[in-house]
């Protein structure tokens, strides 16, 4: 197992190097003079010079790259051109909000997707299966922003059941320590703030989780159906095991494998989707920050946040693969 983990870690190194090269070139190869692309057509020569110096554009390209990687290894992801703040600092300040949102979306997707998929597979081609299929078809066909606005219109504007924007009602004046609003509310012993934070999470989490929910439902259904037709399941039934035992010991244990893989892959989609979800719900996370950075031509923020997102995605996939190897000995010893 340790050997497998080590092999996977070594395998990630070329990907990281490739990523750093691409993102390094991202700013350097901006069409025209990067400094003008960053500052706009009306930039003063002094400002242009400042950008050239901070990018080290007068140095040979490989020296520039080594400096860039050296900086990354020391946690220096550059600074925003708009406010001069270090990118990593701002990222870490906003990242908890994005984690909270993605975790809530994943809980929704997995918590609803797996039981629904199992239910549909139990009665294939029945009316229940039909309903689940239609729901999952809508899940993959309705864009996050469309679902987001629809839910805001119904649940916030018309029914006033749930709040439409932000993470918590500012009037509650919750002191932030970890920047995870839900955790901060628990730490502060404020049930009112906790309820409010959870209410704020519902709509964005459902919007963000809708696509993974649909995919997880489909994969669970297909995977359970596949396993149900296996000889060993028939044998298990033939030898008189209870349906419950057949389900838990023989069907689900094998059906988990593809579902786990998909959950891991969907994390990447969730991170990407967070960019759009946070814009719809004015969620103060990394996603809305990236969109602002793009609109302000703050390329360092764009470059570094994509790099950090990719790093997180790689780590999550590594964890999922290790979990997969743990579940499936055939992978471990391959």
């Amino acid at each position, binding site marked *: 197992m340790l050997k497998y983990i080590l092999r996977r870690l070594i395998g990630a190194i*070329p*990907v990281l190097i*490739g*990523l750093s090269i*691409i993102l390094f070139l*991202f700013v350097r*190869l*901006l*069409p025209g003079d990067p400094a003008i692309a960053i500052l706009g057509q009306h930039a003063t020569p002094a400002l242009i010079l400042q950008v050239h110096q901070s990018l080290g554009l007068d140095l040979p390209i490989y020296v520039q790259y080594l400096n860039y990687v050296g900086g990354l290894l020391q946690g220096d992801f550059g600074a925003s051109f708009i406010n001069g703040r270090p990118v990593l600092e701002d990222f870490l300040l906003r990242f908890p909000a994005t984690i909270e949102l993605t975790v809530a979306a994943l809980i929704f997707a997995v918590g609803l997707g797996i039981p629904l998929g199992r239910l549909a597979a139990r009665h*294939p*081609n029945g009316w229940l299966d039909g309903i689940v299929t239609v729901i999952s*078809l*809508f899940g*993959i*066909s*309705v*864009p*996050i*922003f*469309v679902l987001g*606005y*629809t839910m*805001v*219109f119904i649940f916030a*504007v018309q029914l006033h059941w749930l709040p439409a924007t932000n993470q918590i009602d500012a009037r509650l004046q919750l002191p932030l320590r970890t920047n995870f609003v839900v955790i901060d509310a628990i730490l502060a012993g404020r049930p009112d703030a906790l309820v409010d934070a959870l209410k704020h999470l519902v709509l964005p989490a459902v919007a963000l989780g809708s696509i993974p929910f649909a995919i997880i439902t489909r994969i669970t259904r297909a995977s359970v*159906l596949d396993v149900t037709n296996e000889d060993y399941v028939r044998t298990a039934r033939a030898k008189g095991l209870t349906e419950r035992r057949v389900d838990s010991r023989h069907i689900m244990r094998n059906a988990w494998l593809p579902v786990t893989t998909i959950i891991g892959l969907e994390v*990447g*989609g969730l*991170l*990407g*989707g967070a*960019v*759009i979800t946070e*814009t719809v719900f004015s969620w103060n996370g990394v996603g809305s920050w*990236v*969109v602002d950075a*793009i*609109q302000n031509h703050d*390329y360092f923020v*764009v470059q570094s946040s*994509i790099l950090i*997102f*990719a790093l997180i*995605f*790689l780590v999550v996939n590594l964890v999922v693969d290790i979990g997969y190897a743990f579940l499936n000995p055939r992978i471990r010893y391959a």
Partner: protein
Amino acid sequence: MAVGTATISRPVRERASRGLWRDAGRRLLRNGPAIVGLVCILIFVVGALLAPVLSSYDPSVGKLVDRMKPPSPAHLMGTDLLGRDEFARVLYGARLSLQLGTISVVFGLFFGIVIGAAAGGLGGKVDALLMRIVDVLLAIPGILLAIGIVAWLGRGQIQIMLAVGVSYTPIFARLLRGSLLALREADFVLAGRSIGASRLRLLVRHMLPNALTPLIVQATLALATAIIDVAGLGFLGLGPGDPRVAEWGEMLTDSARFLQSAPFLIFFPAAAIVISAIGFNLVGDGLREALDPRLRR
């Protein structure tokens, strides 16, 4: 010689196979959901082609006195902030959205086929190098990659198609490479190799045609997500950026502020995106089942 007729019982008549694609086409047309999908797509294709006939309004010109009018016989889907006819904008938007989505997928397919064919066909170091590049692209979530590319190249139709296309490239490349690797040891490839066919001939004439099926299914499904991704870029302010042309995603962003006062402005472009995505998803699923009937349960 006379042929005896009475003694031989008639064999069970089985329709002879008329080739993979013809058989698949027949199965597709018998698949209810796929037909619904085809109709969804056709509505927009016909709407886009006949836009000038179906609506007499110019999608880019409006009367300010008519702004934000709810749906009425004169304006079937109402009018937007600048008094432009929403129905005309949804129709002309279909032109742009379908075109951007389709060409994005064609770009993705092109790059994916080149990379996947080189990797799966040539193997060895080329394969290792290309697959590492694909790994790098796969490490960046698709929409984020597209956002990064548009941010880099600037707004515009070509830029959007390239950005969305590149974000699909690694998926197509991986898929094709996998199919080609599986085919390398197939009997007909070994036979070709044994009679001295060149590597390129084997790849182009024998392996590629047999490996394209899963790619075509994936491309149909990708059309649905491409339309959503293009609209998503428009929604984030990275759309074509040309006020003269209507794009569904940008139409949504422009009307988001009026969710409370004029929800119809969001409803119609949103419905257009959803219906076309459902169409491509249903056809993609139907095509997959038609090409591999074992999948059907």
